[in-house]
């Protein structure tokens, strides 16, 4: 097995007395598409947010392409200086459920923002790159409009382009289609599928189990404060071994036909 792009070991996170997870280990190999499933409140978002340190884990270690992030201390808790947070986030792309586009910038401005402000590129090349990324998500013709003029699906595709422009080593998606009208889900999933086919490494939190089955190469089911069951889509989705996974999937299938 090649060296993992991302390695989480012993990751733990609590909010006050609410322990979200205690000991998460996960290796993500280059090209892995790992779908993260689990009940509401099981900690899927928190896990994803710990990977780019929007939440600071209480304990454990994060390695990105072999680089240990932060300064691990004897207590097990690492310290993450501001500089390291920023370095890590440049290398990890994140897409949110609510898009979070910058409403006062044009579509191209949104995509170019990180290139200009974070990577210090001049505006010409940054715009060229932004247009190329917009092309990839099929929105080059919207480059000069403002986000308020876009549909939800278009907004989310811009948000994906904004993350991709930074050339991330891994992409994180937190329920990218949950805020969308059903009719708009397809266009966003289509873009994610295309990225998967290009061999991008990604962690994808989703409730679209059918999509996860087709696009992911591994499924991680979160429950009981950790990764409860992990395996190939066939293993976890078709023949789940553990009780909570079975119950979760049965619940999801109840209204399917």
């Amino acid at each position: 097995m090649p060296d993992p792009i991302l390695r989480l070991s012993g990751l733990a996170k609590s909010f006050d007395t609410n322990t979200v997870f205690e000991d998460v280990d996960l290796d993500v190999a280059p090209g892995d598409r790992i779908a993260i499933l689990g009940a509401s409140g099981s900690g899927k978002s928190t896990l994803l947010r710990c990977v780019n340190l929007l939440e600071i884990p209480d304990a454990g270690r994060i390695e990105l392409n072999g680089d240990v992030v932060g300064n691990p201390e004897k207590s097990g808790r690492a310290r993450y200086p501001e500089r390291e947070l920023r370095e890590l986030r440049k290398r990890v792309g994140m897409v949110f459920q609510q898009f979070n586009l910058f409403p006062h910038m044009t579509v191209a401005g949104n995509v170019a923002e990180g290139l200009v402000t974070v990577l210090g590129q001049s505006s010409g090349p940054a715009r060229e790159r932004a247009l190329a990324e917009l092309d990839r998500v099929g929105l080059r013709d919207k480059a000069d409009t403002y986000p308020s003029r876009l549909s939800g699906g278009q907004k989310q595709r811009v948000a994906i382009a904004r993350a991709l422009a930074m050339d991330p080593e891994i992409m994180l998606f937190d329920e990218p289609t949950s805020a969308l009208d059903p009719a708009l889900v397809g266009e966003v999933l289509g873009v994610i599928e295309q990225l998967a086919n290009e061999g991008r490494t990604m962690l994808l939190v989703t409730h679209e189990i059918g999509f996860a089955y087709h696009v992911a190469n591994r499924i991680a089911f979160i429950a009981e404060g950790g990764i409860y069951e992990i395996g190939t889509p066939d293993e976890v989705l078709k023949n789940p071994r553990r009780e909570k996974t079975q119950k979760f999937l049965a619940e999801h299938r109840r209204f399917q036909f």
Partner: protein
Amino acid sequence: MNYNWDFASVFDNWWALAVGLQGTLRLFAVCLILGMSLGLLVALGRRAHAKPVRWASTGFVEFFRNTPVLVQILWFYYALPILAPVEISPFMAAILGISLNSAAYSAEIFRGGIQSIEPGQWEAARAIGMSGLQTMRRVVLPQAVRRIIPSLTNRGVEIFKMTTLASVVAYVELLQQGKLVASLNFNPLEVYTVVAALFLIILYPIVRATYGLERRLARSD
């Protein structure tokens, strides 16, 4: 009542009022710039990581919000030189009183605007690797300022009107010159009517212009 309005005695002294108007505009420009920029700094200070900075900023706001500007101007003019070996001109005293008071109020306006920006905007900016300061400058403030333009306009109008308080230390501004003209010509009714009208004539177009600006900004998001 039959009063014979006699504006000729006012217009004969137009140069005195013009000098006053110049003083008013000068004081206004300085206080507007100082008050707003200091207000922004204080608002950022209230969000600082360092506790002493937060306390100092909060103390500043509470102190200057809860003391009358008139008293502050008098204090800076008559009291401060007793405490410290400084010479305070009427202009300086008025600048200090009005700017510090305006800074306290505009700090609260900026703070409200900053707080009104959704956490998702911070997260999106941080997630592409921006620093806290970059996020503030590129993402949060531009949106916050649009939202608070009406309140900032009110503050600006308030500052303009507050400049008349400088007459208490005989700073040469419109009201001070008006008083002078009125006392020389015994025509307070005409003089103060003209002074009031001048304020209206200057402020109203400015306020209209910012309404227009507001509408234009609203269209882009």
